[in-house]
């Protein structure tokens, strides 16, 4: 069995699966259930400053989109930070950490963008025995209208400033949670690095409207006929999150800052992908909110089995493993030529590859009267659309052409050496190949 234990910026947990700061971590009851179920740690739902707590709407807080069989693919929410008194949360955090010392207890915080406010709350959190803090610079709704959450995260100078305040005022590791609602996530990540943050976590949720009620003409989720944007999460956001994680992981200025990966982690495989692209651990929310805490069992067993199969003995060995393979488009090998191949034994003859290719792509699939679908190598550009629309896994695959073979589409011999756009003759700015 691979060792799943995790040490993330000095915060230890028996596995790299933490519950993200969100409704599942709002109170002792839920968190204890999570720990009983086997979660490695939690980021407690965001605390605000002392005083009357925020209030939430009294109607729907969530909207969603679904795939086949009403599988939840994307969830959005307009819930705010915790609406329970600060002292209640602090008391419960302390109790849970005492009862579950081997689990990671990180506390999410969001207070006004003034040093005094941060200075005021940090000692209270420290006193609970929590392992670290996460600065909520990502929440895109409600709190951002009050100058907090993503309103801070969208201004790199603020990110740096608040991170620095926290580092100066607590001994706890500081994780800066980043908003994806920016043009280039590296700006905020670099700011966190400059501010001395121990780690970044991302992504927070994405501005979104999930749907419109066509009878009432109200955006969803709607309250009394009106709606507002909420934060989008769940499987649908994973590709966006993976890209942002990878962008930070390979950015020299980010200096390999530890990353807690968040965004649509639903299975062990998703978690492994986040790790490979640069995360040191992962945080999960929507999957737990969809299926309950028990899913962590699959995540643990799956990750462990896969690591055993690959010979990885620790999570750290997986982390950043794919980062060197993330590059810019201009460096992709233009001499790597593939063709789609359809496995006729697996084909169920639905014809979706044909419709997709014929109507919208390269007319590279032929259809016979008996519904046999075959690739026309002379036309196939290996775009992969047929693979993506085929309902049968592995029925259509992309097969790399051998060196020395002639690509029937271009008439050119497939060359062995790597060549990219930077040296391509069609590139006006091409540099001479060395």
């Amino acid at each position: 069995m691979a060792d799943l234990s995790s040490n993330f910026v000095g915060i230890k947990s028996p596995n790299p699966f933490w519950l993200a700061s969100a409704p599942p971590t709002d109170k002792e009851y839920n968190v204890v259930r999570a720990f009983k179920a086997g979660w490695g740690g939690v980021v407690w739902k965001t605390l605000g400053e002392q005083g009357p707590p925020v209030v939430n709407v009294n109607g729907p807080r969530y909207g969603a989109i679904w795939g086949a069989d009403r599988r939840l693919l994307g969830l959005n929410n307009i819930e705010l930070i915790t609406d329970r008194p600060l002292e209640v949360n602090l008391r419960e955090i302390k109790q849970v950490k005492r009862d579950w010392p081997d689990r990671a207890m990180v506390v999410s915080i969001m207070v006004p963008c003034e040093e005094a406010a941060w200075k005021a709350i940090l000692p209270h959190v420290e006193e609970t025995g929590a392992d670290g803090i996460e600065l909520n610079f990502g929440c895109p709704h409600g709190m951002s209208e009050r100058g907090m959450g993503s309103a801070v995260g969208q201004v790199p100078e603020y990110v740096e400033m608040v991170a620095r305040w926290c580092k100066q005022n607590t001994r706890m590791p500081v994780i800066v949670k980043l908003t994806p609602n920016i043009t280039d996530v590296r700006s905020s990540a670099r700011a966190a690095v400059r501010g001395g943050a121990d780690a970044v976590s991302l992504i927070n949720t994405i501005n979104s409207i999930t749907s419109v009620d066509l009878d009432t003409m109200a955006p969803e989720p709607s309250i009394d006929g009106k709606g507002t944007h909420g934060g989008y999460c769940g499987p649908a956001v994973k590709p966006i999150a993976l890209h942002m994680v990878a962008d930070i992981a390979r950015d020299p200025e980010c200096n390999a800052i530890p990353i807690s990966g968040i965004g649509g982690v639903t299975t062990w495989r998703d978690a492994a992908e986040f790790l490979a692209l640069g995360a040191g651990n992962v945080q999960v929310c929507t999957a737990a909110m969809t299926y309950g805490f028990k899913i962590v069992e699959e995540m643990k067993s799956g990750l462990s089995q896969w690591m055993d199969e690959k010979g990885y003995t620790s999570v750290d060995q997986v982390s950043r493993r794919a980062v060197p393979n993330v590059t810019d488009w201009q460096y992709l090998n233009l001499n790597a030529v593939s063709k789609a191949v359809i496995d006729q034994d697996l084909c169920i003859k639905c014809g979706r590859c044909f419709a997709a290719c014929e109507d919208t792509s390269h007319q590279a699939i032929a259809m016979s009267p008996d519904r046999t679908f075959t690739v026309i190598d002379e036309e196939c550009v290996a775009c992969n659309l047929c693979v993506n629309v085929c309902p049968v896994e592995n029925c259509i695959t992309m097969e790399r052409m051998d060196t020395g073979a002639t690509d029937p589409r271009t008439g050119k011999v497939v060359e062995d050496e790597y060549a990219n756009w930077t040296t391509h003759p069609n590139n006006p700015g091409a540099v001479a190949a060395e």
Partner: protein
Amino acid sequence: MRNSQMTPGIVGGRLTPETYGENFQDLHAPLDHHEAAVAADRCYFCHDAPCITACPTEIDIPLFIRQIATGTPEAAARTIFDQNILGGMCARVCPTEQLCEQACVREAAEGKPVLIGQLQRYATDTMLDQPHPYTRAPDTGKRVAVVGAGPAGLSCAHRLAMLGHGVTIYEARQKPGGLNEFGIASYKSTNDFAQAEVEWLLQIGGITIEYGRTLGGELTLGELSSDFDAVFLGFGLGGVRALQIDGGDKDGVRDAVDFIADLRQADDLSALPVGRNVVVIGGGMTAVDAAVQSKLLGAENVTMVYRRGKEAMSASQYEQDLAASKGVRILYNAAPAAIIGNGAVREIEFAYTDSSGKPMGETFRLPADQVLRAIGQVMNTRPDTLEMDGARLTVSHTMRTSQPGVWAGGDCVAAGDDLTVTAVAQGRDAAMDMHNTLTGKGA
């Protein structure tokens, strides 16, 4: 005293009153909204979908399923009715396992096709209590006679009426619907669905039905041809093939089609007499319908005996399984040899047959107080001016008979396959060709 399953002879009231209701309820309960959503989700929206090709009426199945999935079952119903105005009945009686669902790529993928038939019913049911969705084109002044108010005739009449022609249907019975009303098992068409569907269909207007009018009786093809601009023959197969064995005339021996018709028209199923030991001779849908319903009426033992092997049986595997699940015993490779009894049938003797259906000598007997013949229907109306292809009318691919101005479709033509859906397709196609001819558009 009430009768039981073991009461000898042909009697009614073998079951408790509640049991009849349970036994004859819908074979497939209608899909509710959630079930329909789940079922519709499974459709892959195939390109040039095989299910469409497999449907004799070529309904655009992926489109109607997508319309269900996106919350517009009314649009789905319209997609169905555009091709098949009796789409409601076809959703109930089509052997989908041999047609669209057999062709479904998910049958190939995992042996579980999309529930096309049940989804079609879900869609069409939404439309039946709504106003008729089609309107008539301006009156063309043309008049067409349609013989037979079965699936072929109704389909033809509706399409003609929609195109602006005036239609008179001549129906031999006192009720419309043909085999939909008289010929299929009761649990496939509950709540008087066949009549409701015809009433809904007739809302198009421009169609009158005259009942009790039989071609070959007081009506002749010659008169119809001269009185109308065109004639469509959809009179089906009114006769039953005779059983040429000793004792075939004994009491208790009757045609399965009559048994089914009586059952379909019965107000009180408990009053319907059925034997304790019923033997059904034949291997088609009618045989299955008669056998299963005998069992459901309370017969103790029902045996279906077919002259050839299982693979030659025209009842689908699904129908055979249905019969077996209801307790019907199916015997293959046995041909009736003699019916024995003093006045009424007491037992029936069969000869074992080889694969070609020929008797091999050895025989066996089954106790029987009722014998139902389901060995095929034949045409009993035979306009002698028309060319025949074997025992049925010759038609072109546009359903023209050998006589100009006369079209035909349904079970009475050689191109048919004894399916409601095929009859509907033929009636529709004949109507389109008649329309083109009457308006000078076609060849």
